[in-house]
């Protein structure tokens, strides 16, 4: 269904994260998520945006029959799971804060998501529908959309908070959900969750196991929001105190034990996790290792279980070399089809990119095939919504590379062989992916465009370019869309969008964006989103380039690790479903 926009969220909030092309391993380690194969005794997991797959008439309460995707069969492999073991993961980015409502860097999310649960979480059915993300249950054991504005969640009955002061193991109730949702839409300016949860009108907890949420207007993205990575459910005893940044007390599979600043975070198994029998791992250690060479050395030495990155930053031959030198690893490849990938974006209010023809010259001129080749066999064409998602366009919807047409467009815009187009791309080392700029430089040469690369400091880039600055012409950015087109497109392309860094305004786009927002019927919404995307591709405030894939190695002993096809979509990895095979002689 939907691609997650967690990376986008990060970048939008301007928090530090690795450009996924250069910080391949970072993107990768952030990218891992095991499948949500297990059900918690309840089979009615529903896909996210199909909330309206059977168009709901106000008042009908009957839940939609589960589709093939929705039937989350319990992963039979879990029956063989063994208890025990310590899972080490090397992380280049240390968490900033364990409060995901306020900080959502990769490190912060990964650490917090070991300890906290969500109402709903993103899942992927690797068997029936690989690559499609839907939302499955977590603290909500079931949900239904009562009418266009109202949702009712039934909560699991046996969840308990971790037995740490000041929460001390008390039972989890609907009041906790109400508290968390109210917190997320509250007035603290440090929150990253406000605009997503703002359409909520009120939250009620009529009984300890039921939560009813009402939105102000029809908000088709609501369920996706409820399942988003940072929508963690927190206890008020902790969340109201400053300790919430460096301490985590949740209902999740692992207990937060210790945070040794700059070194590692330690987590212990939660013996009273509401999914009984899980987790299987005894300990998780998240170690902070900034240098890729060091992470590689650690993996080779057998200290960590997972390693990899995005070619060509980490070339295939390296991965092969390491794979061949170690007897006990599997290789997991993930193609790039499922994230929105890299894009060039233009400042549409200043020359030369205020002229649509110049932007389109890039759209038609860029040699996508050559770009894909440079990124190795795992890369694919990118679009406003991920191509493999339910919302994605098809490759055939995109114009083919046509250098002649690009040149003609440039000429019409006034750039000829005597007065060629020369632009400056203002990039950041961390966020723009240096390779992208160089590739663009190279592929636009035949079109007659010269691109000068101006790399500025990362934080300066965020402030001056990414956050809607005016003093730039173009830049490039490695981005992920959200799982839902509302989050993925509205903020960026609506004239009032708070992340509209291209300063793009189009009444047509605005109308479509507003329309899709309240459309629950999946097919109808798909059509609107499709029209919107075609418009965006043609207007080209961004030119979507390619999305890279990742190539990972994982120890064979570390079982049930699945890398979600949507890649970065869940940076909380579902370690609760993984276990270690016992060593041969133990």
């Amino acid at each position, binding site marked *: 269904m939907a691609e997650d926009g967690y990376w986008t969220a990060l970048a939008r909030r301007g928090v530090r994260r690795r450009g996924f092309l250069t910080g391949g391993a970072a993107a990768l380690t952030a990218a891992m998520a095991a499948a949500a194969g297990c059900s918690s005794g309840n089979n009615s997991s529903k896909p996210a945006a199909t909330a309206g797959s059977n168009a709901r008439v106000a008042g009908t309460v009957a839940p939609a029959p589960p589709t093939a995707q929705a039937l989350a069969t319990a992963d039979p492999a879990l029956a063989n799971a063994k208890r025990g073991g310590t899972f080490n993961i090397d992380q280049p980015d240390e968490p900033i804060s364990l409060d995901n409502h306020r900080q959502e860097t990769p490190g912060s999310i990964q650490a917090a998501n070991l300890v906290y649960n969500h109402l709903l979480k993103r899942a992927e059915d690797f068997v029936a529908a690989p690559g499609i993300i839907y939302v499955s249950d977590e603290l909500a054991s079931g949900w239904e959309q009562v009418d266009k504005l109202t949702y009712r969640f039934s909560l699991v009955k046996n969840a308990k908070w971790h037995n740490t002061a000041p929460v001390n193991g008390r039972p989890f109730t609907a009041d906790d959900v109400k508290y968390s949702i109210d917190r997320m839409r509250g007035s603290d300016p440090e929150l990253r969750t406000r605009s997503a949860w703002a359409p909520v009108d009120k939250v009620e907890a009529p009984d300890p196991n039921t939560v009813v949420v009402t939105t102000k207007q029809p908000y088709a993205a609501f369920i996706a929001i409820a399942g988003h990575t940072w929508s963690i459910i927190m206890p008020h005893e902790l969340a109201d105190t400053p300790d919430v940044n460096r301490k985590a007390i949740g209902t999740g599979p692992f207990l937060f034990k210790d945070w040794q600043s700059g070194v590692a975070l330690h987590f212990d198994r939660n013996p009273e996790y509401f999914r009984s029998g899980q987790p299987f791992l005894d300990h998780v250690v998240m170690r902070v290792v900034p240098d890729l060479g060091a992470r*590689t050395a650690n993996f080779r030495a057998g200290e960590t279980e997972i390693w990899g*990155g995005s070619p060509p930053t980490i070339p295939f*031959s390296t991965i092969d070399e390491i794979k061949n030198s170690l007897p006990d690893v599997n290789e997991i490849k993930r193609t790039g089809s499922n994230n929105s990938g890299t894009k060039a974006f233009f400042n549409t209010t200043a020359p030369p990119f205020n002229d649509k023809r110049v932007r389109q010259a890039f759209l038609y001129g860029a040699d996508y095939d050559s770009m894909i080749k*440079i990124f190795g066999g795992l890369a694919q064409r990118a679009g406003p919504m991920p191509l493999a998602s339910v919302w994605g366009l098809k490759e055939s919807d995109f114009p083919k590379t046509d250098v002649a047409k690009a040149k003609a467009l440039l000429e019409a815009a006034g750039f000829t062989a005597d007065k060629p187009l020369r632009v400056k791309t203002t990039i950041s080392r*961390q966020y723009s992916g*240096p*390779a992208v700029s160089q590739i663009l430089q*190279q592929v636009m040469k035949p079109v007659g465009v010269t691109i000068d*690369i101006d790399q500025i*400091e990362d934080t300066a880039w965020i402030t001056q370019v990414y956050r809607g600055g005016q003093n730039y012409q173009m830049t490039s950015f490695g981005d992920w869309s959200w799982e839902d087109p509302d989050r993925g497109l509205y903020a960026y392309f609506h004239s009032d969008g708070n992340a509209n860094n291209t300063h793009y305004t189009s009444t047509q786009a605005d109308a479509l964006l507003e329309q899709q927002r309240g459309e629950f019927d999946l097919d109808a919404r798909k059509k609107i989103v499709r029209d919107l995307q075609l418009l965006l591709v043609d207007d080209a405030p961004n030119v979507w380039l390619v999305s890279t894939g990742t190539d990972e190695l994982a120890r064979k002993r570390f079982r049930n690790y699945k890398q979600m096809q949507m890649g970065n979509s869940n940076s909380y990895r579902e370690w609760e479903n993984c276990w270690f095979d016992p060593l041969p002689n133990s």
Partner: protein
Amino acid sequence: MATAERAARDDRLVFAPDTPATSIVSWPLAVARFCRRKPLGAFGGAITLVLIVMAIVHPWIATHDPNALNPNEVLHGISGRHYFGTDNYGRDVYSRVVYGAWASLEVSIISVAIGTAIGTAIGVVSGYFGGAVDMVLQRVVDAALAFPGLILAIALVGLVGPSVKNVSIAIGLVTFPSLSRIVRGPVLSIKEQPYLEAARSTGANSLRIMVRHILPNITAIIIVVVTARFGTAILVESSLSFLGLGPPPPTATWGSMLSGDAIYIMQTAWWLAFFPGAAITLVVLGFNLFGDALRDVLDPRLRGRA
């Protein structure tokens, strides 16, 4: 006993002491004598010369466009086509090393020029005028020395963006203080010379005295220090690149080549890490050897200081 004799022998200089370098009459003869007496230094000088020449003619001796990405030739080894192999983007390592020579030269020249100019100016003014001027300037130099160079580098890069030029300026600013200290010492003793007193009493203005009388006498020291600084500048630039503060990717500097993510592929693609690292080491070695020999020859009294 033998030690003292050997030490005395070393005192024989190519040039007479206290003779400003500018008064040497026969350069070719001096160079020949230098090569004979200080073979290591000559070797260093030769390497340095090779670098400079390579840097200047880099567009002509490179075999490929250093920034041309070529997916068909990723991580190829040494071959007739690619003398130093290719990197993980298919770029020719040899050409990048050659272009990197130019970048390194640029960085060293600019940073050393800035550092020398500022350092000499402050050192001479401070030493010559003495008193309050000296005290204030020395406090400023103290502050500059106490200021962590890393912060200055990051701040500068943050302010004006990373580029070869800006990195060079940053390095120059970080290195000027110590030169001013080194220069100040001799200035203090030179200014007491009687002939300068005479010059002052006839009304020659300070600037003239500083330039015409003091500067030539400290040229030797400056030359020696500066030669070593070239090597340091290259090392500092490569460290900054490693930390991500160096000139951005299209520019191929040796430091940024070593900081690429792929350099740890030692087993199969050793050439990625070897050639740039060897280039840096060789060039810095050359500068150091040459600088050492120069110092021995121009003024061995500087052994403890430069």
